[in-house]
């Protein structure tokens, strides 16, 4: 007996207040007796404390429990028989919360995870195992109404502008200029800008864009704030030509980024670092906080 239980979604991602629609796909070689098929949808925020924070904040250990955003359950089919072959059962769930709860956008992070799942259960007789299948679907939050006004940022990096260095004198001379077209970015559009190596005494090894998430979990007792790298994109490799503008271009990865989020329990923020690696392995970093939104 071979049974395949699967979903086909109408779309790949759904917006809040839309209807999640699709079909349950059942494929079996012979007719299948069952005691009812049910479908449940759940949206959860999972918070986790980083190991280094755990020691300090053991006190509020209990407070870090999943936050349920949405939950609903429907019965798809009463006990009966599924005919042999392919059976498609359509379903629909509205993505609407009760009360004043807000549905956040799907986000996969390290300490914060926002996930929406669909679970289909098929109850069967005592002798046969119950069948069940889990599946995640992606939710986008509602686009913000207000127009995003780009806020360009110009930057100049020289040995003098750097902080956090021990011996300023041992640094080679360099002048790196550039700009980001905006720090308040639309999540579906790439981060753009330009960087120009005006001059540098030491050859440049690499210029990279480091996308960083800053996740804050906390409650009344305190909070833990951790910054981790999402991705690192190299925009220049080797000793680039001086005076030539090198484009900054980075697509925000899906799932791993979401519009900047600030709630009572947790925060998800993003930053970008422009990292310049010199040939003598000096590392120069310039940090820019970003504000992501969806339009």
């Amino acid at each position, binding site marked *: 007996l071979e049974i395949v239980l699967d979903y086909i979604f109408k779309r790949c991602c759904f917006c809040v207040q839309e209807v999640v629609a699709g079909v349950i796909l059942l494929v079996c070689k012979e007719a299948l007796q069952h005691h009812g098929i049910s479908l449940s949808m759940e949206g959860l925020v999972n918070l986790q404390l980083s190991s280094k924070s755990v020691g300090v904040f053991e006190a509020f250990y209990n407070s870090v429990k999943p936050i349920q955003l949405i939950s609903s359950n429907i019965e798809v089919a009463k006990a009966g028989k599924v005919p042999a072959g392919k059976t498609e059962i359509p379903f629909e769930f509205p993505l609407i919360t009760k009360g004043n709860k807000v549905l956040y956008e799907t986000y996969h992070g390290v300490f914060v995870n926002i996930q929406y799942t669909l679970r289909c259960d098929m109850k069967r007789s005592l002798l046969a195992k119950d069948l069940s299948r889990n599946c995640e679907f992606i939710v986008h939050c509602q686009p913000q109404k207000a127009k995003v006004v780009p806020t360009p940022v110009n930057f100049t990096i020289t040995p003098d502008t750097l902080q956090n260095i021990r011996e300023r004198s041992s640094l080679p001379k360099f002048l790196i200029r550039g700009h980001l077209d905006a720090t308040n970015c639309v999540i579906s559009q790439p981060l753009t800008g330009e960087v120009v190596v005006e001059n540098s005494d030491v050859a440049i090894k690499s210029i990279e864009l480091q996308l960083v998430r800053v996740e804050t979990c906390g409650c009344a007792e305190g909070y833990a704030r951790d910054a981790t790298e999402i991705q690192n994109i190299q925009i220049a490799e080797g*000793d680039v030509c001086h005076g030539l503008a090198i484009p900054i271009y980075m697509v925000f990865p*899906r799932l791993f980024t979401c519009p900047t989020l600030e709630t009572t329990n947790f925060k998800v923020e993003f930053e970008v670092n422009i990292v310049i690696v010199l040939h003598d392995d000096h590392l120069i970093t310039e940090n820019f906080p970003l504000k992501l939104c969806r339009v």
Partner: protein
Amino acid sequence: CSNWRNYEAELQRCRPEAAPVEFGDYHPLKPIMVTDTKSRRGARKGSTSSSSSSSSSAPADPLSSMLDGTDPLSMFAAASVSEAPAMTHSREKEEEVVGPDFEPWSSKRGEILARFTTTEKLSINLFMGSDKGKTCGCILDLPVCMCVQGSQRELLNLSQQDYANRIEELNQSLKEAWASDQKVKALKIVIQCSKLLSDTSVIQFYPSKFVLITDILDTFGRLVYDRIWTMCSDPRPLPDSFTVDDVNDTAKETCLNWFFKIASIRELLPRLYVEAAILKCNRFLNKTGIQETLPRLTAMIRGIGDPLVAAYTRAYLCRVGMEVAPHLKDSLNRNFFDLLGTFRQVSGESVQNQLVQQRVEVPEYLTLYSPAINWILQCIAYRAPEPLLTEMMERCKKLGNNALLLNSVMRAFRPEFVAARATDFIGMIKDCDEAGFPKHLLFGSLGRSLACADPPESERLTILNEAWKVVTKVRSPQVEYRCYDYICDHTFYYVSITFIHLSFISRSQKREVNTVLADIIKHMTPDRAFEDAYPQLQSVIRKILTYFQDFSVLFSMERFLPFLDMFQKDSVRVEVCRSIMEVFIKHQVELTRDPVILNAMLHICKTMHDSVNALTLEDEKRSLALLIIGFIRMVSFGRDFEQQLSFCVEARATFCNLEPVLVQLIHTVNQLAMETCRVMRGSHSRKTAAFVRACAAYSFITIPSLSSIFSRLSLYLLSGQVALANQCLSQADAFLKAAVGILPDVPRSISVEGKLRSSESFLLDFINNFLATLLVVPDHPEHGVLYLVRGLLNMVQDYTWEDNSDAKVRVYVSALPLLAAMSQETYLYSIPKVDSNETLYGGDPKFLSEINKLCETLIGQILDNLKALGRDESTRRQGALAFSLFGVLLAHGDLRNNKLSQLAVNLWNLCHKHGYCETGISVRTLEYIKHQAQQHDMTHLTDTVQRLALQSRT
């Protein structure tokens, strides 16, 4: 017992009534004229469908319909001409599409691989990651995150061939991974491969590495595109000109997913290459995708620090761009300008350090750029407007006027463009910054263009002089040669070609070309440098041959033959000789006796001939022989026959290994004898008689050296006829005797065009031909009557014919007409000034009785044979044979003789006994006999006719 014939009267009777043939009225080969096509064509003009000839009402003759211009091809051409003005306005995009005149990448590929090689050890550093990629709950067909954590595999100490094999293996495993639905693995392979392109450790090999790896990228791009394409081909395949709206959501999502995935590749170079590889997939997402991506990728290349790596990345982007969106010229130009902008890096510190480390010289390093830059420029220059090219030229000039760039510009731009500005270019070459790039190479490239297009008339001499000055300074090629052999051989060749070309168009050909050749010899001889430059030297020869078609001028160049001597490798040498011969045969129209040409050509032909050995293929031999024959036919000493004969003697000694040539020589000599005969109006003087005998002797001693028995036979016969015509009786006798003598040696089967076939029909043909000749051959006084005829018939009797074959009897049957003809008072034909048997014997009864005896024997033999056939139940053969004998008796026999007429009747009955005779033929034969019977003194036939019953088969 043979009939007395009056050939004259018979001929008169046989002549058909003169019926004037009206020419032009009807001819079976004339094309069927379709007269209504004119009006039809006008109506069809606008439509592009090509249903031309099939719709016409006349019988469809594809050839005739082609003749009046309604064939699909010419219609199309006509249509495109008439539509051309409209097209330029409405379909500008169409016009920009790459045409067949764009040299595709595939043709460059091989050249690059062959040119950029290394003996250094190579390494492949693959960082494949583990296959158990972290699944991150993605609902799409690829996990979005790419976790690259896993084993690093490094393959060291690879030879170049190993390297290529490894890359090919990767290409295979890419395809396999794709086929087994392991998309992530496939992507990883591609990423790792493109990562290899950032490694410039064995820099000489870099261009070849680029070629190998971009092959993989191309494969990948194709796979992705095809997959997405098939995703939306349900329910019906997408048309080629699909738009975004035709693409379904799943396909779009998959496509988008690919782009997201690629956008998250960490390293710059793989990200660039892989995105470029699937550039075409942008078509599925939005209309302007390619248009936006190309400039972005172009800009991103600026981030590549190594100028060589960047140049090749640009070349790849241009290549993909040309393929996917050839109308987007801007990013091509952008690429080139960026390239110019970063070109100063070449002399930068990082590059210099690298070169020192790898012990690579600057000039060699610079040549590594040429494939990439040439390609980019080729893309730009393709159908580019003149002003753009001028602008490019100006920019190159402004940006340092680098020799390498100048070189590429000259090679990529249209030859006409370069040629028209040749003086400008020479100026640029003169003041360009050499930077390790030798100037004569630039002249080489200039020469390449000038070889295809002519510079303005007035400038030619100046250009020649200017270029000459530079090139004569290049005096130590052998030193350079070893260093950068690639540059040198090509250049040298182009420089030389240029000079030949220039000299030609400046009309000071011979002397200049001679000087150039002298110079090449001088450059190439030391250190046997020519050994490496055969292809180039061959091209020089070819170029010379296209300009010098007057061979007396060509061979009078004193450096030409020494130049030929440089080809010391046998195969190349023969190749060169062959090309010279081909041109000679094509362009030498007049017969020649010019000793310069003859000597040189003999030398060349001898070279070709001497290359033949036991291993030479038949085809090769045949083509060489044809070329030599072509030469021999062009030689004529006019009235100096003796000289011609001695030429033939010399040629025979020289070309003894090629049989077709010997055959041709025998024909030539025979022709010579006949020519002498013609000149002497048939009566030879003592001197000419001796000469023709010499000719006969020549043939007589040459023929036995041929291996093909049939060419020997036919040449004996032919030479015998020629000897007879020249009154050399004993020689003719000897020829014919020799022919009879070798008859038993004829094998029963011979190979014709590689297939074994029975020789019987050839042999019968020959014997019939031979018999016809025997009529005029006078008997030898010392031998008996009809010595040759008897000899032939004896040979025929002794010959082992094929089993179940009537060939022998057929010969007997066909000998009967000869004997009948011999018994006539005057022969059907004779040779002037040769007394045939008719005069020798003068109708001597003894002679006639000899003939009769012979006839009787033959008929007896034939009848015996017929009886034997009757026993063997092969009645069909019996019938056919009997009928042919009946025919012979009817035509040549005297049927007044009762015995003979009875025999004829019996034969008639015999062949109708089994009903194998064709009734039509029988009826016609009867009618013929009746017709004959009405003739004067043929009345006896009436009786015979009455006794010939026609049996109807029913």
